[in-house]
């Protein structure tokens, strides 16, 4: 069943992953997504009743850390890459919705 992803859906997802996109881009992606998702739908052919998802299969044994404190990285190093910082803090614009 060919499935289309409307531009409004594309815009919604784009915002979910914090991507600014234009109307034109939204339309282009909408076309491409529909084709790709349609291709993915071939998985519906596969019978997976009683098949566990692979993510539940531990392929490594428990790997846990002992509760021991390791030295911190230098703040100067950390802030060197920061676009904006102030008094040892990372600085960001106002945070609305809070």
């Amino acid at each position, binding site marked *: 069943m060919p499935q289309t992803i409307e531009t409004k859906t594309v815009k*919604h997802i784009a*915002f*979910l992953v*914090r991507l600014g996109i234009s109307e034109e881009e939204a339309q282009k992606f909408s076309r491409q997504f529909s084709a790709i998702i349609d291709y993915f739908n071939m998985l519906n052919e596969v019978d997976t009743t009683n098949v566990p*998802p692979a*993510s*539940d*299969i*531990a*392929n*490594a*044994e*428990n*790997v*846990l*850390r*002992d*509760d*021991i*404190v*390791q030295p*911190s*990285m230098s*703040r100067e190093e*950390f*802030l060197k890459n920061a676009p904006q910082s*102030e*008094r*040892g*803090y*990372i*600085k*960001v*614009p*106002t*945070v*609305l*919705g*809070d």
Partner: protein
Amino acid sequence: MRPTYEPVIGLEIHAELITNSKMFCGCSANYASAPEPNTNICPVCTGLPGALPVANKKAIELAVLVGLALNCSVNKHNTFARKNYYYPDLPKGYQISQYELPICENGWLEVEFPSPQTHQTPPLPSGEGRGVRETPLSLRERARVRVRRVHIEEDTAKLFHEKNYALVDFNRAGVPLLEIVSEPDIHSVEAALDYATKVRAILRYLGVNSGDMEKGVLRFEANVSVRPVDSDELRTRTEIKNLNSFRALTRAIAYEIERQIQIYESGGAVVQETLGWDDVRGMTTSQRSKEEAHDYRYFPEPDLPPLQLSDEWIESIRTRLPELPEAKTARFISDFGLTLSEARFLTSERTLADYFERVAAKAKSPARTVHSWIAGEFMRYLNDSGKSIEDVTLLPESFAKLIDMVTDKVISGNSAKVVLNEMLASGGDPEQIVREKNLAQVSDENQIQAIVEKILNDNPAEVEKYLAGKETLLQWFMGQVARATKGKADPNVAKELLVKSLEERRK
């Protein structure tokens, strides 16, 4: 006459775990005592490209410990998940949490609440911390609140909102956090308070969280809806976030219950939304949510293999469970003959209960006497001095000896209070202090009789009034005796002699 409503309340409790290092990296988790921002950080907890999490064994042990204390079943196979949303306090753009398979599930906790409860919002507790109960215990009901799940996650960074920008400190980012989620089994503000109080007490008993609300190591979220009493429908609920004190918790829930009732009463409909609590204005406020459409896109964390816990390991954790408040309370009642409220008070803090037990063990006096000394003068000293019981250096032996001295009439209760405060302030042995301060009680009848005679002679007017029927003056005469003897006179003897001498004056 409007119908009465029943609130339906579920609580989410976020509790930081006391560990040395963070949940997924070796940075110190003790952000509270970090001198400067961004000094307990590494590539993992600041979300640098390529960094990977490794789970803290201790945090997992503590999570299981809490789950067991809350009567949960432990999932031997449990998994971490990514909760995706964007916020400057969340460095990776997702929070490592647990979703489909939390570490613990299906527990319960017994709570108490006044009966019957309706929408009439009960009086709010005045204090914080220890459960303040205003309804007599006799009028209370008990019920189980189911604990849906207990899961492990990582705390976020600290965000400081300035005028037109914000500052981020990652020292708290990645600190182990426990989320304890109840079913909506709570039907009154008081039951909610009791549940929250009990959970806090248990966390403190287990030593996994300080319960220090001011420091934000314990945070509440409540989801609230109301429905007509006797209906079992589940109506639209609202979620109140960031409740950082018991007072905020109870006030917010009470306010929200009332708000929703008003809406229904005026024929309106409650909208499902996330609310904030404005403590200053005392009202819930609609909050623009972090992730408008709450689509967190949870999926299994591929960087962390599922946890496989063995029965042996889980049982070894179970053996570390201390006696919990409820059990201790019951034992105090049966072993020490205390009343429920006396036992409740003593078991409200593990350290207090332990101290009581140590004193009671040394004292020959009845446990209830020990209780009244601890609940009375001892607590008064702690409150006045602002000290906590951990600071108390007074040896239980000495305290016990002092209490026995009162019981054996070696000193009067009033003198004992003086001695106790002396010992609490600067240690020392009760007998020695009594000797130094020469506080030994006078029980010698002749000695006291002489004093009584003098007082009666000196106060003919009062004697008149007394004999004329104003017998309440007896207390006044007692006071005079106490003053004359600096409180050392055995009150029973003094009273006896006073009455006798007064009666003799009738003739």
